[in-house]
């Protein structure tokens, strides 16, 4: 029954997966944006800047609100607006963090 084994003249070698089974960084994301790594990298810097921006706007809102509470500043609207701006910045940071974590989790779920 030699027919069965020899019908398709396919080069079987090309079908075998490469022996190096550990996926390399270039295979997953060839030349794309750097994946967030504990050491920082580009995205880490962006995120740090965002956090300090949020801190600043929270500090400013705190200052204005305190001066209104103590009676030094009669402009209630400045306190309300500063608090809303600080809350917006904070929400933005939280959403970015959520999306990053989601993306990372999806990445980890990818079968290799």
């Amino acid at each position, binding site marked *: 029954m030699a027919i069965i084994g020899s019908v398709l003249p396919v080069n079987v070698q090309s079908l075998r997966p490469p022996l190096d089974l550990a996926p390399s960084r270039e295979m997953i994301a060839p030349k794309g944006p750097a994946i967030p790594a504990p050491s920082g990298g580009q995205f880490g810097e962006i995120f740090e800047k965002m956090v300090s921006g949020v801190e600043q706007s929270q500090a400013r809102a705190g200052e204005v609100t305190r001066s209104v509470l103590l009676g030094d500043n009669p402009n*209630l*609207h400045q306190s*309300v607006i500063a608090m809303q701006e600080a809350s917006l910045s904070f929400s933005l940071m939280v959403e970015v963090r959520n999306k990053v974590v989601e993306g990372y989790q999806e990445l980890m779920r990818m079968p290799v």
Partner: protein
Amino acid sequence: MELLTGIAATGGALNSQRTRLDIIAQNIANARTTRGPDGGPYQRRIVSFESELLRSTDSANGAKSPGLATVRVSGVTTDPTPGQRVNDPGHPDADAQGMVTLPNVNLAFEMVDLITASRAYEANLNVAKNSRQMALKTLEIGK
């Protein structure tokens, strides 16, 4: 905390106008009082106002600016103008010539004063209402 803008000024004005209305009511009530505690006819009282600085609004670089001021009653004085003298010998307070000195209260003046004071009072109430509505609107920013 000064959450309502201008409320301190308005409060002072409401107090002052109330005092003024009280004095006007007193004047009108005594328009025919020919014998007061001092023995003479009632003399009309006059309320005088003065402004009182609440908060200076000079800017940080020293530029002068008129501050925000409220008003307060600086004093209640007696109008010394002698009242009208009428001839009424039968009146218990008639003097030796049969003349009675009436209080120097002119009802027409007092009524005009009363209306002015009421209008001022209502205008200040209007300001207070607006302050409150503006503050409530401000609190809803972003909601």
